[in-house]
């Protein structure tokens, strides 16, 4: 483990670490543009100049590997002068259209100018080289004038997606990035281009002009789009989610996330959310209060007893699923969750980057808690045989399955916890309003068997409650209280009851999750970690 001294501080790093990463990891900031923690070192922006003792010239921190006894100075007059000059070069032809640029507020040029620059520009605005602006590349907008030619997007395209869409064209001060024949970016990871771009050259089409970023408040969460469980930030203002962006986690998603995942914020604030409970009397729906609806469910379950069936949802958090299982156990009903066999696809990739075939975030958590108990087919068979008097669904998945319609029609009482309105809800008797993933605390267990936390970012609409709270409400009415009133407390029960989860709690899981050993097929485990 080589030791070096940066700005008088002794720092020990892993062999092969570069000076820039060593400094950043230890809270010493060196300006940089082209270096990205999850991309190869390129060293073209020349802004991270530092003075290294016994080296004749200044070195770029990103491409200088720390060696034993190295003494680095990042703030010596020589280094600072070089950093300022390099920054000035980047800004020579920059259009300074910050007022209309969406990157403003999270722009490396702005931040570094305020920190290292603060000089008066020597180039008049009229003399700057004009380049192409407002080029629509599908989900990305290109503004070549703002580009600092750091090549992060080129490297992302070649190293992560392998699509190589971007290339530098022209020479000298007219060089700019472009796609071949202005073709649009068509792969599922285009949103990351806006994230890797340190300036406003590549921006998200979806977020364009929507909000100034300094109004947004970020909440740590986990993407519910598939079993990968990418770590995300939910950016919200006044209870309205404006965007999702990846949160770096080296073991799961690095700094990336897919575009289908990014688009999931759109389903949070829509008007088609289920915001109140309702009950069907004959042919018409009648709105009822949530307590009244829970009363109705409890009464039906009391009558049905063990002639009841429960279908959990792998969209629910571990806490939701645990409370739901407790409800099933309270009346000794049948229990499963495997509608559409998500457990067979949980580790199946659908591309080479992040996405997986199982579009549920918590299939592994359901498996760990033993929710896959009686089999969906067996439950449906019991329904057809008239042996199910009450069916409680944690999500509307089963209602959407065409083969299940006839079986559901034979069940006298079907209650469903739903987040969004849909025609399938008409097959239920009672609809309970459920909170969405961004509105509830909890944990998901991803395909690697990594337990990750999500935090509530926005309030749930209307009367909607987290699914665990709905289950706990019914349990109270059955005289079998859950014994926990918050996700944190429920997780303590989960940890006690689930093999492998012992010793875990919300605090121990932390921001980046906690990996549990994958049981079973070791080859799958290897593949999953890769």
């Amino acid at each position: 483990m080589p030791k070096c001294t940066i700005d008088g501080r002794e720092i020990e790093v892993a062999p092969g670490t570069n000076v820039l990463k060593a400094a950043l990891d230890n809270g010493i900031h060196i300006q940089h543009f082209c270096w990205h923690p999850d991309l190869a070192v390129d060293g073209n922006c020349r802004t991270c100049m530092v003075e290294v003792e016994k080296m004749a010239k200044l070195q770029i921190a990103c491409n200088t590997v720390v060696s034993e006894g190295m003494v680095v100075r990042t703030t010596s007059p020589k280094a600072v002068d070089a950093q300022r000059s390099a920054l000035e070069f980047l800004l020579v032809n920059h259009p300074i259209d910050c007022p209309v640029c969406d990157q403003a507020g999270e722009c490396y040029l702005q931040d570094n100018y305020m920190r290292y620059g603060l000089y008066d520009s020597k180039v008049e605005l009229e003399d700057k080289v004009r380049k192409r602006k407002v080029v629509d590349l599908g989900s990305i907008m290109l503004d070549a004038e703002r580009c600092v030619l750091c090549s992060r997007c080129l490297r992302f395209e070649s190293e992560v997606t392998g699509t190589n869409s971007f290339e530098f064209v022209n020479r000298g001060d007219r060089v700019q990035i472009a796609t071949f024949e202005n073709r649009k970016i068509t792969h599922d990871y285009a949103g990351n281009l806006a994230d890797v771009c340190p300036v406003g050259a590549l921006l998200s089409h979806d977020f364009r002009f929507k909000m100034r970023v300094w109004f947004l408040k970020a909440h740590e969460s986990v993407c519910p789009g598939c079993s990968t469980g990418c770590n995300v930030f939910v950016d919200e203002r006044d209870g309205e989610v404006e965007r999702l962006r990846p949160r770096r986690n080296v073991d799961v998603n690095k700094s990336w996330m897919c575009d289908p995942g990014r688009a999931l914020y759109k389903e949070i604030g829509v008007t088609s959310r289920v915001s109140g409970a309702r009950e069907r009397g004959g042919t018409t729906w009648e709105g009822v209060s949530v307590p009244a609806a829970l009363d109705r469910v409890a009464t039906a379950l009391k009558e049905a007893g063990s002639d009841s069936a429960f279908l959990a949802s792998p969209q629910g958090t571990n806490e939701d699923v645990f409370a739901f299982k407790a409800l099933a156990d309270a009346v000794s009903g049948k229990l499963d969750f495997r509608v559409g066999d998500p457990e067979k696809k949980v580790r199946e990739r659908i591309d080479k980057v992040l996405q997986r075939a199982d579009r549920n975030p918590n299939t592994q958590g359901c498996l760990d808690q033993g929710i896959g108990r009686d089999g969906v087919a067996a439950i449906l068979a019991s329904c057809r045989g008239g042996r199910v008097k009450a069916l409680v669904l944690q999500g509307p998945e089963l209602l959407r399955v065409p083969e299940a319609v006839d079986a559901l029609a034979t069940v006298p009482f079907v209650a469903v916890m739903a987040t969004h309105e849909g025609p399938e809800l008409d097959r239920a008797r009672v609809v309970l309003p459920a909170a969405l993933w961004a509105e509830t605390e909890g944990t998901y267990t991803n395909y690697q068997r990594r337990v990750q936390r999500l935090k509530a970012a926005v309030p749930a609409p209307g009367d909607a409650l987290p699914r665990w709270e709905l289950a706990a409400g019914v349990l109270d009415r059955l005289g079998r209280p859950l014994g926990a009133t918050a996700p944190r407390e429920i997780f303590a029960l989960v940890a006690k009851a689930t093999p492998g989860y012992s010793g875990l709690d919300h605090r121990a899981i932390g921001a980046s999750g906690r990996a549990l050993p994958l049981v079973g097929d070791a080859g799958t485990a290897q593949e999953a970690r890769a």
Partner: protein
Amino acid sequence: MAIGVITVDRSQKAGVLPLLQGHWVTLRIFLKTLFLRKASTIQYPEETRPVSSRYRGIHVLTEREDGTPKCVACFMCATVCPAECIYIESGERPETTIEKYPTRFEIDLLRCVYCGFCVDACPEEAIIMSRENDLVGTTRAELVIDRDRLMARGKLVEHGPGYRPVDHDVRRPVRIAALERLKAEHGIVPGMPKTRG
């Protein structure tokens, strides 16, 4: 003796003279008003008091020559506003040179504290203040004025523009430095901005 206590000499009695002196003041003002028409009061609302050219009254959104708003929806005013009374939604302009403009721009005049920070923050001189201070409405909603009303105000202002980022403003040292350089190198002295109306 405690600080702040004034001891009044009661040995002297109030005479007739001070009384007459007081009456003379009243009589003098009365005569001046009656014969010389030099009243200390003004006949509001027919007459209004003149206000400073930097008066911070109701806002005006300025426009370009083609009648579109000068505002580029950068949200600087909404960011700096201490009363949080500015609401903006932005959209895309067809010209690639300007790109952005406000599709909605609302100021809640009842919530506004008329500090003028929005004028200071604006990089485009798109929002200025007028000298108008009549704020009358029959409902609260009426006094949340939208983009079109804010822009139309530019033509309606009776008393000329009020607070705006003018060149002689002492709070703009960068501007002043630029002006001094302009004067030293080119001998140009920009005059006062022309007032409207």
